[in-house]
């Protein structure tokens, strides 16, 4: 690992240099307060002062709908048209950590070529961030990066400190080394440390994830799940915005007038109605409560028991997305016995009241 320094005004020139051979993806403003990752040509569109994108950067690697094959009766032609040289710039620590989880997942047992090829062609240029009230990443220990990035930019007053995390990252720097310098002063170090400390203290949301596997086991039959199930709109948003969700569906899209098809994969969500339905109509998880339990068990129990850390990177997307406030924070807190203020709680109280009437 090496750390170099980049003057702020040198950032765009640097992006200019590196974007010559790859598409540059960066956060841009979509709504007043919401951002998305977009392939940018005009750098002035880039808005680094963002909290979290609506959909995590995994969509750049595996878009919601990907064509897998062009098929005929006896030929299958792989379609890797989504694979191209890409650089994702401005990605926050939580999302970098999520990609580490995704990398592991897609390489596990079998190699998923659609992900891995896209991933191999993508460079990750991380960027430092400041937490808001929904950021949980300190609790998941994903507010800092230790792996999974090629370069990581920490913003100081007039400079960026740039961590070089891989050989490819180093190649990027070498495209125009004159933009960087290596004389990091003591003052710079102090500024960085102060910033680091202030940031650590700025986190507001917190959950103890270590207890989660046991709590979920102990509360397996808790009425909580039914309460969540009653309020859940089963819209699938929590899964679609989650940076570590990976479920997908495959369908055969025949081409009119030809004996040929496109085989398409599209994101699926375990919170949706027919996620666990098999041919013949049997549905293993018809209840919303069961499906929610699966999601939380997967994120907060199974992954922790297997890898010692949750499959949640604390990005806060489920918190800002769920219209009925079912998210890692409210569910996690309720499991730990804390009181929370959430729509699903109020809703259940209301329903109970009306039943009593």
């Amino acid at each position: 690992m090496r750390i170099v320094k980049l003057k702020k005004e040198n950032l765009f020139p640097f992006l200019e240099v590196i974007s010559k051979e790859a598409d540059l993806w960066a956060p841009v403003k979509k709504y007043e307060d919401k951002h998305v990752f977009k392939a940018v040509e005009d750098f002035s569109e880039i808005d680094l002062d963002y909290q979290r994108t609506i959909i995590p950067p995994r969509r750049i690697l595996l878009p919601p709908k990907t064509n897998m094959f062009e098929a005929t009766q006896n030929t299958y032609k792989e379609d890797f048209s989504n694979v191209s040289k890409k650089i994702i710039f401005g990605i926050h620590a939580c999302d970098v950590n999520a990609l580490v989880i995704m990398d592991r997942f897609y390489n596990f047992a079998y190699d998923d070529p659609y992900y891995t090829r896209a991933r191999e062609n993508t460079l990750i240029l991380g960027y430092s961030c400041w937490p808001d009230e929904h950021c949980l990443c300190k609790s998941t220990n994903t507010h800092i990066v230790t792996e999974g990035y090629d370069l990581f930019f920490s913003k100081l007053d007039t400079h960026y400190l740039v961590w070089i995390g891989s050989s490819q990252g180093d190649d990027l720097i070498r495209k125009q080394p004159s933009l960087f310098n290596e004389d990091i002063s003591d003052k710079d170090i102090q500024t960085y440390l102060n910033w680091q400390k202030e940031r650590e203290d700025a986190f507001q949301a917190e959950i103890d994830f270590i207890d989660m596997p046991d709590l979920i086991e102990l509360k397996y039959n808790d009425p909580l799940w039914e309460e969540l199930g009653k309020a859940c709109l089963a819209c699938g948003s929590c899964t679609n915005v989650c940076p570590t969700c990976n479920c997908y569906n495959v369908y055969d899209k025949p081409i009119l007038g030809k004996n040929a098809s496109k085989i398409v994969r599209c994101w699926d969500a375990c919170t949706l109605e027919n996620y666990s339905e098999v041919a013949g109509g049997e549905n293993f998880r018809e209840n919303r409560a069961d499906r929610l339990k699966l999601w939380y068990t997967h994120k907060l129990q199974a992954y922790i028991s297997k890898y010692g850390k949750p499959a949640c990177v604390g990005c806060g997307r489920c918190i800002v997305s769920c219209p009925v406030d079912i998210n890692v924070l409210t569910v996690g807190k309720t499991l730990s016995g804390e009181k929370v203020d959430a729509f699903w709680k109020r809703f259940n109280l209301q329903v109970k009241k009306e039943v009593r009437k």
Partner: protein
Amino acid sequence: MENSKLKIGIYELTGCAGDALLILDCEKELIDIFNAADIQSFVMAKSDNIEGDLDIALVEGSVTTEKEIEELKDIRQRSKIVVAIGLCATVGGIQARFLDPKEWNERFKKVYGNIEMTHTKPVQSKPIDAYIDVDFYLPGCPIGKEQFLIFFTRILKGNPPEKSQNPVCVTCKYNENDCLLKKGILCLGPLTEDGCGAICINHNLPCAGCWGPLKTGNRTSEYYLLKEKGFDVEHIKKKMANYSGTKIASFLKELEKEKK
């Protein structure tokens, strides 16, 4: 496997004819559509229509006159597969809003007075499955081009597509839209069948529900949520009912009871 073309009829009952028009709107595929199947009857597009036995009948529009009931039953008898296309055929359309026969009668009188129709008697608008068995449903107001083409191509080969039970929210998120419900806007995305491509939300407008109600949609929860957000109860109900035809009648009745 066999190359003999399937016999297909496309029929319009009462509605805006948008679903039949959408088939004509597949300009680039139109000739392929006519070549891939034997289109026996399609009144909007051709005059040499034959009304005989069919493999597949696509029916759009709601049943609104006695004559249509007869026509529909006749179509059912001659077809192996009947597909309801569009909101009117699947749920009854916006015109199936008056669930109470008394209210419908009053409204009808307001429009037509006491006139006695000579050509055919009117009946309250209903989806086609109120009178016949329906094999497949293609929802939408109007149906979508891609949805139709996938369905059409698959059914020609005898493989109906798998039924999705997703709400609009799924595609809405694919398109990376911000949740309007979360912003306090009355959006029916979670209660509405997916397939339109979340067009309205892509245009910063809330989902009006025009693809018809999602069977498993959690209406109760959204109703309370909207109520909590300060929407007028009557307004919520109307919004939910606008494009739900006869299909959420029991839910609306449930709400009436609660009020009492």
